[in-house]
């Protein structure tokens, strides 16, 4: 238990007309919870209390962060019956992540979709997929109105079709973060748009604001088989979510901040997916942007995605 919870809570001076009903209720709850912790209660109660009075993720001191992560690790480890690691890796200075996807090579095999599900602990039931692969007519070009995400062929690519996987575009000018009423989602310094699942109130404004359909809501309690849970998790990324919060692609924040490629890059059988540092002139992502024909999805909306579709052939 960190010091700040046991310390006397700052109570505002009562206004002349006395406390309002709401203020009294909040203070009462605080007092109750504080009493519970000082009386020596279970670890689960402590975590529940901490979750209730938690500070915003970006306001946590290193000490508080450590406690918070340790609490979560304990909770998930008990829940899934194995040792789960939760880290909060900071962004690497001088790095701005960018992603490129070759539309002329993608064959629509959906290996990325399921690789992502396993890596990022998406709910198997109800089903959540961070990546949607759209099938469109080559003749027609990119026309999202006639795109089919539910194609089911014997083999892909189907004749005359091309495929466009869509996930979070990690916009430099993200509409989703602007509409969040509680600042539960924001853009990190390395360009990754993240969500704090413990701060999200589930209002789904961000889902309405995202023009790419990249955000997904946990309508039901997410279910991940215990043996399939990826125990290497990140606070702002692939740690298990709860019902009633929004989630989306984080560029595999738990991998890329350690220098690894995202999972979808590693599982793509045709090498259509490219990832790197936009600020590094030697990176493959810069080579692609400088030398290939790049297509930006819904460029006219000025969201400035850091996800670049391109034609390698």
């Amino acid at each position: 238990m960190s010091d700040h919870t046991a310390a006397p809570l700052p109570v505002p001076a009562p206004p002349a007309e006395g406390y309002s009903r709401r203020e009294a209720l909040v203070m009462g709850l605080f007092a109750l919870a504080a009493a519970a912790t000082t009386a020596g209660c279970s670890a689960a109660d402590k975590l529940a209390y901490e979750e209730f009075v938690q500070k915003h993720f970006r306001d946590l001191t290193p000490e508080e962060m450590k406690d918070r992560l340790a609490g979560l690790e304990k909770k998930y480890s008990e829940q899934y019956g194995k040792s789960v690691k939760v880290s909060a890796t900071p962004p690497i200075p001088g790095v701005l992540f960018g992603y490129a996807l070759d539309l002329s090579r993608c064959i629509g095999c959906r290996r990325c979709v399921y690789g992502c599900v396993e890596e990022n602990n998406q709910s198997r039931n109800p089903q959540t997929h961070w990546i949607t692969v759209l099938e469109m007519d080559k003749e027609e070009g990119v026309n999202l109105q006639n795109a089919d995400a539910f194609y089911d062929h014997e083999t892909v690519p189907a004749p005359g079709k091309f495929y466009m996987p869509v996930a979070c575009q990690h916009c430099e000018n993200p509409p989703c973060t602007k509409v969040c009423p509680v600042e539960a989602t924001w853009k990190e310094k390395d360009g990754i748009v993240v969500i704090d699942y413990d701060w999200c109130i589930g209002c789904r404004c961000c889902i309405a604001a995202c023009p790419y359909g990249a955000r997904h809501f946990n309508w039901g309690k997410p279910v991940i088989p215990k043996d399939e849970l990826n125990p290497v998790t990140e606070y702002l990324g692939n740690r298990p979510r709860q019902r009633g919060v929004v989630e989306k692609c984080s560029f595999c924040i738990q991998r890329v901040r350690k220098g690894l490629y995202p999972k979808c890059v590693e599982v793509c059988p045709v090498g259509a997916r490219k990832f790197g540092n936009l600020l590094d002139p030697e990176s493959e992502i810069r080579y692609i942007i400088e030398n290939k024909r790049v297509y930006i999805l819904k460029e006219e909306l000025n969201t400035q995605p850091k996800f670049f579709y391109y034609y390698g052939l």
Partner: protein
Amino acid sequence: MFFRVGSLARNRSMWGRMTRMRAVRLAAAGGWAALLLTAACGPVQEKGPRFGNVVDSAAKTTVTLFPVAPPPFSDGIFPCSQCHGPTDKVNRTPHVVDFHSEIVLHHDEKNRWCLDCHDARNRDKLHLADGRLIDFTESYRLCGQCHGPTLRNWKAGEHGKRTGSWSGAKQYLLCASCHSPHSPHFKPLKPKAPPLRQEAIR
């Protein structure tokens, strides 16, 4: 045509012009140009296939080799010298080989056959157009003789899959890891299950 659009933008660079003009002789003549791309390459290792900047003594140049996955040999087929000896009689007239019947050559088969890439005297090696022997782990140098722009894109990380670290050591796949050298067109795959429709989610 699409290639041309990309290449025009690159025309100003020496590297782009070199490769366009001499794509076929890239491996022989373009070694120094490949040096420009060394940043894409990992640290030099002691064990395993050589990579990094190494001296090609036959051509008296330095070539840049890449950390690649092992060549995708069929089980038990390598080393080829298990069956082929250096003193075997060699029929250099293109003909159908009885033993390797599982290989269907569908790769400019009207103009090419086995010994255009495989070396008749040292079967454990491949040879470039000028006769220099190379290991199977360097087969991209062979492929790049005809597919120059593709080799350039592969070196830059645009063509082909890379795994490992975006910031550090990464592994490249050989051309042959994805494209069978005897029939290089990418084979269709069975797609994974489509997502559930919204009305099916309970």
